[in-house]
């Protein structure tokens, strides 16, 4: 019985997204694909893979830089085998890789151990850039109402990975639990990454809606905190 074009297209894509075709160690087994040139399919598979990995690499440049070469090659190969391409979008391919990596790191702790924190930050930054989240101008620090900047992303981390994002030596990365806040300032493409002390984070989470300054028992300390958070862009302040 002749096979439909759709069946052959499915077989072809299964082949082109397989590790065997991409890395050149698999034969062209599918009956539906007989008559196609295996070497040219291998080239096609490799081109498509490189294009996909470019999307992923550009999302996680610091994570890949921090990985050992062998680990990187093994991980990419395992990723290809476990997660064929299902979406054209850069962010979706990055998310697919991130989910795969996190599951792998559950079984096999990453080396260096702060890789997951880097990946989490890089994915959050990519997501923010894509959604166009930008920090509103925070010139006002003395307004009557304020709320948490909803575009800021808060990430609990096990390592202080800010040196990696600041271009400093990786050996400056310190093992400690902390909360990082990520923002992309207005008219900038570069993210700002700040540490937020736990009590401040708890307070910020509560400030989901506009809050009147007058409703709080104003102290000099609180006023200073509001001004500082507004200056960093973690609080939006309005009204005079």
């Amino acid at each position: 019985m002749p096979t439909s074009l759709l069946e052959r297209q499915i077989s072809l894509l299964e082949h082109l997204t397989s590790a065997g075709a991409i890395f050149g160690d698999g034969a062209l087994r599918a009956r539906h694909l007989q008559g196609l040139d295996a070497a040219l399919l291998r080239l096609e598979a490799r081109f498509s893979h490189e294009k996909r990995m470019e999307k992923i690499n550009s999302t996680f440049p610091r994570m890949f830089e921090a990985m050992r070469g062998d680990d990187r090659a093994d991980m990419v190969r395992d990723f290809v085998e476990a997660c064929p391409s299902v979406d054209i979008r850069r962010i979706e391919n990055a998310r697919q890789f991130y989910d795969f990596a996190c599951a792998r790191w559950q079984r096999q702790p990453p080396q260096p151990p702060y890789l997951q924190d880097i990946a989490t930050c890089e994915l959050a930054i990519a997501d923010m850039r894509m959604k166009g989240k930008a920090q509103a101008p925070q010139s006002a620090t003395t307004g009557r109402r304020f709320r948490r900047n909803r575009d800021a992303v808060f990430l609990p981390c096990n390592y202080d990975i800010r040196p990696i994002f600041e271009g400093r030596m990786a050996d400056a990365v310190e093992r400690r639990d902390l909360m990082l806040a990520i923002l992309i300032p207005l008219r900038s493409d570069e993210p700002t990454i700040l540490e937020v002390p736990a009590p401040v984070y708890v307070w910020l989470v509560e400030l989901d809606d506009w809050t009147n300054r007058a409703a709080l028992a104003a102290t000099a300390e609180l006023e200073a905190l509001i001004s500082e958070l507004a200056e960093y862009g973690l609080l939006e302040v309005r009204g005079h």
Partner: protein
Amino acid sequence: MIACKTIPAVGIGYRSGIAEWTRASLAHFDVLEITVDHCISSGETVASGIFDLVGRIPMTAHGIGLSIGTDVPLDLAYLDQVAAIVERLRAPAYSEHLAFTRAPGRDLANLLPLPKTEKVAEAIIAKVRVVQSRVPVPFLLENISYLFEWPESDLTDVEFLNLICRETGAGLLLDVENLYLNAHNHGFDAHAFLNDLPAGIVKEVHVAGGVTVHKDFLARPFLADSHSHPVPDAALDLLDHVLKRHAPETVVLERDDRLLEFDEILDDVRRIRARIAAMQSGSIHANELVGAAD
């Protein structure tokens, strides 16, 4: 119809990676080609950067996400999104590749060829009519570059394209680089291909520059459509040939890699303009015009 300084209008494909440079360099271009999928799925930042340019420079609409060749019904919701974007861009036409990129469960995000048979052409014809009914501007099909052939193909590239365009009235977005690569990789005569196209069918043109791929598993080197390097003279020679028999409204340079080589991009635009000017005047030597444009 594109209202701009020259006919054909010359420009580049808009890429968000060089959005700032593009905005600062609009004086060099008559038109920008917008990939509608970037407006749909690359996020608000990219989309607003594109829509901000409406009214500042004419734009054409190009797609990469339709996968018209996948043997399933078209995604009508996607087409409706395309129609809305085309309207917002005020684009005079919408183009897509005669190819497939996905099948249920897989999306290669890479253009793959179709078997060139009458049966497949019939299926594509029906889908082109659907596109034409949903997107209210002329629809153009683009010839892709391809590495492999389906064994049952019994039509040539140009026969397959002509059949679909004739039956649907769709125009052709002729990618001269793809034609150049295919002719080299698959051993046919690119000029014969051009001669076999009905006069006037080419409405838009793409040009780009690729690389030669050498792999130990290939019997011979292959030219790849990497959109990464200056346009080869051989592709510009094909552009000359196109301009003799067709009146495309736009000639768009595609660049997707080594994007920061701005001088190369501008030089390619100048070379394209020089070819057009030389062809139109019939007397000016192309190289003289390149010098004058500087």
